[in-house]
């Protein structure tokens, strides 16, 4: 396989064209053969080079004849349905590639906006440089994330066995241990476990309130404008919860 990318145009250099023809014709025949074998189907190929009035064929002249005969038995409309030439084939490929491109751009835009949202949260960028279109997309992404969080929070709270949310079960256990004195290794009855978890969740919420107040400098609780300052992005906040919640 060559490294150089070949331009999709007629090769004017005679020797280069000859060499390319030889290689590619061989490759083409191989591909037809593989297709026929792997899928157990009839196929044939006829290739006329500019250098020779004799065609090169696969599988063999009798084989080609057989396939041609079968081809002739197919009603003309059927023949034409999936028949292409350079023109139609290239147009199809262009369309397919364009559709693929559109999807790529859409996906990339989503990724971009998500990144932007994260950066805003981390204080690494200002909203002042954004255009209306970007603000709209950003707003949408924020809403979308909020929806996801709410959904996930609801699931986690309802799912008392702690199956949703990684490490949530272990954290609840840790909190359980802290509050009830029961070791994480003890295995209470499932129903009891559920009840305990619900109880702990209520406490949890209260503690989180407190925790967040700890995180946030008091004067900025109002979220008024751009003055929100929080300790720079640092995973290891010291406090009673650092081990449980921010491992």
């Amino acid at each position: 396989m060559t490294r150089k990318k070949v331009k999709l145009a007629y090769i004017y250099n005679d020797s280069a064209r000859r060499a390319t023809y030889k290689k590619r014709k061989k490759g083409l025949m191989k591909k037809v053969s593989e297709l026929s074998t792997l899928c157990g189907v009839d196929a044939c190929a006829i290739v006329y080079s500019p250098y020779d009035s004799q065609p090169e064929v696969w599988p063999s002249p009798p084989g080609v004849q057989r396939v041609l005969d079968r081809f002739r038995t197919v009603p003309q409309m059927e023949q034409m349905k999936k028949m292409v030439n350079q023109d139609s084939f290239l147009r199809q490929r262009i369309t397919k590639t364009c559709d693929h491109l559109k999807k790529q751009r859409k996906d990339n835009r989503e990724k971009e906006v998500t990144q932007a949202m994260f950066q805003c949260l981390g204080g690494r960028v200002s909203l002042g440089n954004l255009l209306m279109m970007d603000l709209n997309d950003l707003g949408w992404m924020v809403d979308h994330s909020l929806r996801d969080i709410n959904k996930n929070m609801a699931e986690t709270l309802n799912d008392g066995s702690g199956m949703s949310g990684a490490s949530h079960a272990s954290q609840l256990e840790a909190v359980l241990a802290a509050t009830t004195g029961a070791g994480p290794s003890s295995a209470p009855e499932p129903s009891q476990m559920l009840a305990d978890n619900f109880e702990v969740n209520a406490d949890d919420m209260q503690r989180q309130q407190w925790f967040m107040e700890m995180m946030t400098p008091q004067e900025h609780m109002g979220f008024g404008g751009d003055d929100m300052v929080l300790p720079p992005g640092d995973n290891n906040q010291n406090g009673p919860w650092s081990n449980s919640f921010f491992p």
Partner: protein
Amino acid sequence: MVRKSRGRQKVEMVKMSKESNLQVTFSKRRSGLFKKASELSTLCGAEIAIIVFSPGNKVFSFGHPGVEAVIDRYITRNPPQNSGTMHLIEAHRNATVRELNMQLTQVVSQSEIEKKRGEELSQMRKAGQSQCWWEAPIEELTLPQMEQLKVSLEGLKKNVTKQAQKLLIGNSGPPQFFASSSSGGFFPYDRKAGGFNPNMVLPQYDYNNLGYGRGFF
């Protein structure tokens, strides 16, 4: 990250056993085969005809200049027609094909650019996740983390709305248009065919330059 395909595997040259795989393989390989044939005729000026029957007994064919033309030439063993008219027709056809090939090349390279961009963005996201806990997928967050993130997002939403209103009223000065650059804003406005901004540059590591950014973490 979920792996979508098994990648390149070596295949044994016998008829495939699984019917479902067989159909998929046929589809892909037939498409690739026609692509190779198209390239051969473009690059070397070869006349080609390929006929393939599908597992479902449908018939696919590719031909340049045309399936029928090449079959005729083969059956009748006639040398190709060498008249002035034929040359004119051929020249015209080749010109169209040339244009189509150029168009195709262009779109394909745009697609490759987007692919690279997508990989870069995924890399950024991955790298960010190790540094900032809020970038992790929501399923991996703990309840208090979700709570905190939620509050921060709601705050951000308010700011975004405020800023949007500012722009509408026209108070924040001229919006900045960026063709490229890694400093300043991070949404360079670069209108391309699809109406998207493919060239957003995100100065993720430019902490010094963006001293005005106040965040939520």
